[in-house]
Structure formats: structure tokens, C-alpha cells
């Protein structure tokens, strides 16, 4: 392999047995990933992203998705390679890059069930709760100030409650019911902050927020009467401050509401599906609404959450956008939605089970490389869509590789906030605490709760930052995580270690050859050049994008 007469171009084209020998040399037995598929664009090049195809249905989801593709004449992508799956599932499920050891041990594991075992392990990780608390923080608009004004103490209480609910896998119906019906202090009864984290506390404003968050719909586009009717259920809430700084009591307060309205409280409410229900002095109308919302037969409720989770994992909803569900925005796969809703209810609103179901599907585990140029391939989930990493996930991955921290700041002058550098960005609870990197890379401001607030499209400014900023270069050149690379010769072992650390996979023989060639086949201590390789890998699309 290090022979000076080695022709890289020939290696580039080599597939099958010759590659297999190199892999054997490296002690890798996953020959499958070497088999080049019959891709529509890259027929002759070996790449490490696919397993041999065609994909076979793994569960009911695939039994619904694949026949549709066949019907439309869209060829699905091949199954993903183990390496692609490993990296994808870590980034998607726990927002965290696998370590070198985790990558190596998974890739070398010969258990045919290793994928589903890995899914189970990840769903139990601490980072699972942290990462999904981050996503819920976006949806629930958890931030201290401007224009949502929760204030720091309440943010901490609220974010902790959300994370704990996820960590203990609180049934989703119970999670929502607690958010909708809680009364008490914003410091001591954290879910009451739901009613504080909005720009508009009028009954209609609250109704819009509830519809957006839990029904996935924009109530401002409803017939006005329906919104006005729904607002009635949120018209008896009052907010009271206490002697403690920034403490606020959120409570059901019919007497205050009646005094405010100057007339008798309504005796009936009309739910969004048109059902008329009595309102009595014995029951908080929010509870009446919540009990209607979370009924298993309520299509608004389960559909919104299964579609939202599908959107989080695939980058697009079966109904898209996932928070703009309306009659003239139909689902691409109503049968898949119906199946997922049924499974959610059957599992007792176990969201982790829903993740497990989707993650174990072949549809989720497809390769990112499309095999069809049909424009409908994307909307029919014929391949896994490549997307830039979330701002928080990307900087955490870079910090993990380099063992460096970040400089965070809060935009709020008081109380003065110091966040330790070692804080991971996915675990930031407060949307008002940020860093230069997060601002540049499209982290959502948490002003509205819209999914579209998060912008993962690459810009020239972001590219510039990744390629050449002192921020990123310093991490690579000085971070303790790559100290070993600064003191190691370039050889197949050190290159392999770098690939496992950064790209979570073994290098292909072709890549090994290219790196060796770049370093001039030097046997001297590599100095900066292994760091140059690290720089290139961190800047590769494979690193920057989930794939």
C-alpha cells in the first residue's frame, strides 16, 4: 500500500476483493460496505456509505413506504452501511458524536442485531433527555428575556422539569396535560411556565400557542369563531406576582376573570371539533380542554406529535411543515401517520417506543445517496436526506474531538451569568444564553416556537468560519483532544484513528492512499500535517452534514 509505484487512480476504481484485502489488513470484516452498488451517478467508485441493496422491509413502516415507491416507480436508496447508521443514529438520537472507541466497537461487532441493540442503548442515554429537552425548549420557547420573558430562575426550573419528564419517559398525554393544567409558582410548579412563555397572554394568544404546540396548527388561519371558542378555555387564567423577585403565580382564577369580564362566566365551551361542553365552577376549563385534547380518538393530538417526531428524525414531516397542519396541506403518507398514531396510543403514549419504531425501520436506515432523480423521491422518503448538523450538535462534536470548550454569554445584564466553558451546547437550557458560533449557525431564537426558526442552511459566512476562523483553527491546533495527533507519525494506524474520531468510520484504502500521498509519504514526525488532515475531515461534508 505504501509502495511508491502505487497508482492512486487504480485504487480509486478498485472494488470488491482487492478492497476486501485492505480491509482485512486493517482488521475490518465488514466487507458488505465495500460492495459498490449500482448507483445512478457513481457506478464504479467504492464508497463507504451503502450496504448491498435493495432494501428489504424491516417493519410495518417499510411495508407502507416501499410499495408506494414501487407504485411511483421510484427506486429507493440502498440500505446504509453500518458506519453511516452508527453516526446517523448517534447524531439524530442523542445529538452527540460517537467516540472513537464507540465507533470501533460497533463496527467490529458481528451481532446481526447490533443496530437495534444500539438504538435501545442510545434511548437510555443521559444525552437523549438533554438533546430532546433542547428540541422541546425550542418548541416551548424556553428563554429568559426578549421577547419571551421567563426570567432565569423560571427557565432553570422549567427546563429541568422538561428534561426530567423526558428522562423518565413520562407518557406524552400526561406531559401535555401537566403543561396545560398546572397552577402555582413559576419557580415551584415548573409547567406553569407554559402560559408565561408566550408573547401574547390574551386568551386568544394562549389558544394560538396551545394549537401550535400540541395540535401542530396555526390557529390564526382558522375560522375566527373557532379560535374565539377555544380561547374561552384559557380565559380564566390569572398571573400574580409575589414578594420574591420575578416570581409569578399562574392559576385558575374564575372570580378574577368574572370581575374582569364584568359579566357571568360562560356556562358552555365549544371545542375545536365543534363539541359543546358544559363549564362549571368545579372544574378548571383548561382541564376540560386538556381532557378533550388528549383523548386517544382525538386526531389533532397524536397526529401532531408523531408527525413532529418523524420530522425531527427525517428533516421533513409526513405533513410538512409539521406545525402547519391544515386541510389543504395533506400528508404524503396518511397510512404511515395512522399506523404511528395507533402505535403511540397502544404503547400508552410512550414516545421512546415511537422513536424505536421509526429508528428500526429500513426507511430510516436507508443510505443518503438517492437512486432516483424523481423529484418526488424526497417527499416519499426514498433516501435519508442529508442535512447540516444543528448548530449545537456541530459545535459539540468539534469540542468533543478537540476536548475544548466554548465561550458562552447571556444577553441579559442581570443577573450576571457565567456558564462554564465545558458546558455542552445541546445541554444549554436558556435560549438567552448563547455563543458566537450558535448565533452564526442558525440556532433558533425561541421567539415563536415555529420549527422554521431553526435554520440549518449553510451560508458563506458559516463556511468561512469553519474553514478559517481562529476559533476553529485554535481548537484543532491547540485542543488537548488532538494532542496525540500532533505527536504522531502519519501512518495507516494514525489515519485510521483520526477517521474513527472525526468521521466515526474506518478510512477506505483509497482514502488511506490519498492521505499518505498528501503527507508526501513522509516517515518523519508528522508535526502539523496530521492536523491538516483533521482540518480537512472536520470541513468535509461528511462531518458537517447528517447523512
Amino acid at each position, binding site marked *: 500500500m505504501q509502495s511508491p509505484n502505487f497508482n492512486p487512480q487504480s485504487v480509486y476504481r478498485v472494488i470488491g476483493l482487492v478492497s476486501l484485502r485492505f480491509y482485512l489488513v486493517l482488521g475490518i470484516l465488514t466487507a458488505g460496505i465495500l460492495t459498490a452498488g449500482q448507483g445512478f451517478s457513481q457506478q464504479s467508485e467504492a464508497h463507504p456509505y451503502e450496504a448491498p441493496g435493495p432494501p428489504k422491509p424491516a417493519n410495518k413502516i417499510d411495508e407502507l413506504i416501499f410499495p408506494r415507491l414501487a407504485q411511483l416507480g421510484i427506486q429507493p436508496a440502498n440500505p446504509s452501511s453500518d458506519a453511516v447508521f452508527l453516526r446517523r443514529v448517534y447524531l439524530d438520537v442523542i445529538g452527540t458524536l460517537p467516540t472513537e472507541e464507540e465507533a470501533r466497537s460497533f463496527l467490529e461487532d458481528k451481532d446481526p442485531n447490533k443496530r437495534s441493540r444500539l438504538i435501545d442503548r442510545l434511548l437510555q442515554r443521559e444525552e437523549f433527555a438533554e438533546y430532546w429537552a433542547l428540541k422541546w425548549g425550542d418548541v416551548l420557547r424556553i428563554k429568559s428575556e426578549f*421577547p419571551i420573558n421567563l426570567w432565569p430562575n423560571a427557565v432553570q426550573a422549567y427546563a429541568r422539569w422538561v428534561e426530567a419528564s423526558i428522562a423518565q419517559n413520562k407518557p406524552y398525554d400526561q406531559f401535555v396535560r401537566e403543561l396545560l393544567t398546572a397552577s402555582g409558582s413559576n419557580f415551584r410548579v415548573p409547567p406553569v411556565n407554559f402560559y408565561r412563555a408566550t408573547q401574547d397572554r390574551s386568551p386568544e394568544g394562549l389558544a394560538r400557542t396551545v394549537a401550535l404546540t400540541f395540535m401542530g396548527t396555526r390557529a390564526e388561519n382558522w375560522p375566527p369563531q373557532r379560535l374565539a371558542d377555544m380561547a374561552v378555555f384559557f380565559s380564566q387564567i390569572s398571573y400574580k406576582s409575589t414578594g420574591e423577585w420575578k416570581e409569578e403565580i399562574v392559576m385558575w382564577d374564575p372570580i378574577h376573570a368574572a370581575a374582569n369580564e364584568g359579566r357571568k362566566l360562560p356556562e358552555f365551551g365549544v371545542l375545536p371539533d365543534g363539541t359543546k361542553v358544559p363549564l362549571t365552577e368545579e372544574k378548571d376549563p383548561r382541564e376540560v380542554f386538556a381532557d378533550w385534547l388528549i383523548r386517544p380518538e382525538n386526531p389533532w393530538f397524536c397526529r401532531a406529535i408523531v408527525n413532529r417526531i418523524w420530522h425531527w428524525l427525517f428533516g421533513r414531516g409526513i405533513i410538512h411543515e409539521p406545525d402547519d397542519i391544515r386541510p389543504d396541506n395533506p400528508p404524503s403518507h396518511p397510512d404511515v401517520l395512522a399506523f404511528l398514531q395507533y402505535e403511540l396510543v397502544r404503547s400508552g403514549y410512550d414516545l421512546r417506543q415511537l422513536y424505536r419504531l421509526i429508528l428500526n425501520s429500513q426507511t430510516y436506515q436507508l443510505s443518503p445517496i438517492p437512486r432516483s432523480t424523481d423529484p418526488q423521491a424526497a417527499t416519499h422518503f426514498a433516501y435519508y436526506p442529508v442535512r447540516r448538523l444543528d448548530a449545537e450538535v456541530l459545535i459539540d462534536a468539534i469540542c468533543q474531538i478537540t476536548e475544548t470548550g466554548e465561550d458562552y454569554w447571556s444577553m441579559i*445584564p442581570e443577573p450576571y451569568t457565567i456558564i462554564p466553558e465545558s458546558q455542552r451546547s445541546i445541554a444549554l437550557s436558556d435560549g438567552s444564553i448563547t455563543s458566537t458560533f450558535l448565533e452564526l449557525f442558525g440556532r433558533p431564537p425561541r421567539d415563536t416556537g415555529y420549527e422554521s426558526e431553526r435554520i440549518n442552511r449553510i451560508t458563506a459566512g458559516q*463556511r468561512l468560519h469553519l474553514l478559517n476562523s481562529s476559533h476553529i483553527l485554535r481548537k484543532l491546533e491547540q485542543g488537548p483532544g488532538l494532542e496525540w495527533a500532533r505527536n504522531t507519525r502519519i501512518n495507516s494506524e494514525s489515519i485510521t484513528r483520526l477517521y474513527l474520531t472525526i468521521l466515526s468510520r474506518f478510512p*477506505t484504502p483509497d482514502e488511506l492512499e490519498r492521505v499518505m500521498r498528501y503527507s508526501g509519504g513522509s516517515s518523519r514526525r508528522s508535526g502539523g500535517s496530521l492536523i491538516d488532515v483533521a482540518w480537512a475531515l472536520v470541513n468535509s*461534508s461528511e462531518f458537517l452534514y447528517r447523512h
Partner: protein
Amino acid sequence: MTQLELAQVVMHVGGEEAASEGARTLSRRLMLRRGIFGLLGLSLAPRLGWGHLLYAQPNSQAKATAVIQIWLWGGPSQLDTFDPKPKAGYDYCGQFTQPSRTNVDGILINEQLSELAKIADKYSLIRSMTHGINSHETAAYLVQTGRMPGDRIVYPHLGAVITYFATQHENPVSPSLIPPYVVLTEPQGRFSEAGFLGPRYKPFATGGDPARQPFAVEGIITPGTTEAQQRRRREMLQELDTLRKAMQGTPPIEELVQAEEQAYDLILGDSGKAFDPAQESQEVRDRYGRSTFGQSCLVARRLVERGVRFITINYKGWDTHKEHFVIMRRKLPELDRGLAALISDLAERGLLESTIVWCSGEFGRTPKIAWESPWNGGRHHWGHCFSALVAGGGFKGGQVVGASDEKGEYVKDRPVYPTDLIGSIYQLLGIDPTTTLRHPQGHLVKLIPDSNDGAPSGGLLKEIIA
């Protein structure tokens, strides 16, 4: 950039387009170049005559196309800059009792500002700025947004507003390579300068120090890395990006490639040189002074030439509670040299007509000097009365607006509130100050508050708008 140089760029790019290297490369490069052209077209349209093909001016009323804001963070003393009170006595004047006469009869400025004294016909002074706020953050927010903080909306800095209006008509497919809103060198922090307009309108903060060689503009210039190394790295990146090869031609990869070409045009191409003061002759560099501030002024001029809309020079160190006079003797000559060179140079290049230069802090300083320990001749925060300098872009020169009382403590004549100045700048840029912006929540927000909002006003600066 002279017309000749521009013509060369045009020819050069034309040649590149002609030399077809395959459809994809061509279209990508073309898009990239259009980015630059769009940008150049904006500011040079009136001078070259071809810009109108690329960009229609939204408002023919516009006199100015760019703003250079010199932000004296901390708040400079009005008495010791543009509003000297030599008769107020030692407790007010301290060491500065001999103000400079300027080339405009009757206008006196601080004796340390000798270069500015020679060109008073090119700028006007506002001696009756007022808002009454004595805390840095609130005053800085108010002077730069026209709004008091705290009403649940985060308002944008006027630089973000101007960028917003200026970029509404740009080709959204390939935005300009050089950011339209630049801060030299550190951002102001705490208050998000883009406010509700969102991160797209945040300024690009250069970092680094233009007085040092090289000026390490964040992301663009990396000290210690040669151009050859950059090229070699880029080559390696393309060699090693296996996924990019496997997915060539798919939209996310194409987007990345386009962003990367734009980035490298700043790193290795001509765009990045806009930030490099070393492209100028030694004489020009000396004229501005070799201080960080002086060279920032020079870079600002280079950026204006390349179509940048709003540049803030965040010039710190004016919060002189202690040993005020020692600091002023150091800073005033630096300010004098850089600012005078900037105004004169813009005028000589025909750019002052279309470029507003605005120099002020968030407030002034207490006219009465704190001689006692621990201040030892210090001045504290003073929002009741302070001064601002404006030049170019339709502002007349050689004028004084308003007046302070005999000790420079309060406004005696013609108060000018922050909204009056900001509104006048908007007007000169062709932005109607009474217009509204759409908040992401859907409602409309007035560009500047008016009397219906309880905001005080002394009226737009009609007396110095030509």
C-alpha cells in the same frame, strides 16, 4: 477602486466566463461573480452608469448610500471635543482653555483637534444632543435604535435597519460576498444589534487589529498561514471529501460548494483584500495614523468603496471617570488624525457626497470636573447634553446645530433627540422615517417612535440637510 481598475475587473470576469470549463463550473462561477457585481453595482451605479442594469434604486430621494459610524464607546466629554467652554473656569475646563479656531468663522473645537479644525467646512456639529440617560447600556441602545429598552420588543440597530432596506432588492440567490454591515473590530455585545430583524442582519465583526500586519480579519486572514498553504489545504479538502464526490450534484452538496467558493473568494480572492489596509500606499496609511482607530478609518473607506452599507468603528476608551485629562491627551490626537483623514479622503475621492460620517458616543460627560480622589480629575456620565459630528451624504458642512448653556450642562437651544438624528440619517438614505417594519410576529413596528408613543423630538435636522 478607480474606474480603470473596475473596467479591468469587468474584462477579467468576462474572460473567465467566456473560457467555458463545463456548464456546472461556469454557472456556479457566474453566480459567484454576480454576487460581487450586485455588490459593486450598488454603490458605484451613479458613477459608472452600468449599475442601474443590475440594481434599481428604490428611492430616487436618496442622497447617501453608506454610513460610517464612529462610535465613541463610553461617552466622550462634550466640553473637551466639539463644544469647548473656555470661559467656564478651571472646574469645567481643566487643562483645555485654548480651543482651536477652525476654517469656519466662529466654530471652535478642542485644541487637540488641529486636523479637524482645518476642515470644519466639511462637517457639522450638533451641540444639543440630549436624552437624559446616564447608564451606558440604556443610552447606547437608545442612541443607536431610537428606542428605550424594555417594552418586550428588541429593536434593531440603525445599521441593521439600513442593511435590511438596502438588501431587499439584491439578488437573493447569490448574496453579496462582502457583508453589507461590518463592525471594526469588536461587536458591541449585550444588545443584539439585529433585534427582531433576525440574525441575517447582524453585522460582521472583523476581530483582529488593522494596525498590525496582517490585519487578522476573522475567518478571512489567518496569520501564520501562507496563501500556498491555504491552497494546499483546499486541495486536500476536495481530495478527501468522499461524501461530496458520492453525492455530487445533489442540492445540499451544491449549496455547500457554492458557500465554499464564496468563502474562498474572501480568503484567497480579491474580495478579502477589501479589508486589507496594506493594499494602500505608506503615505495613505500614515495620513490616517498608524493607530488601530486610524487604520480602522482607512479600512472603512475601503469598504465603502466596495459597496458596504454600514460600518461601525467601535472605538472604545472614552469612559474617563479617572484621570480624564491624561487619557484625553492620548486619545484626542488619535481621533483627530483618523477622522480628519477619513473625511478629507472621502471628499477627495468623491465619496463624501454619498457617505454619511457620524461620530458620537452614547452620552457626554459631567461638565464639572471631579478633582477629588479617587477620580483625580475625572468626568462622569452625562446624558443631558452632548455633541455629535456629522458629515457627508447630504449633511451640510460648516454648520452648528443647537447650543448648550454656558457650562455645557444642559441644552439651551434646539434639542436634538436620538430619533431626530437617526430619522435624518434614514431620510438621507432614502428611507422614509415614518415607515414601518414587520415584526416576525406579524405586527407592524414604526421605524422610529413619534409623539404618539410619547417620544420627545426636536424635529429632523432640516437645517443641515442640503
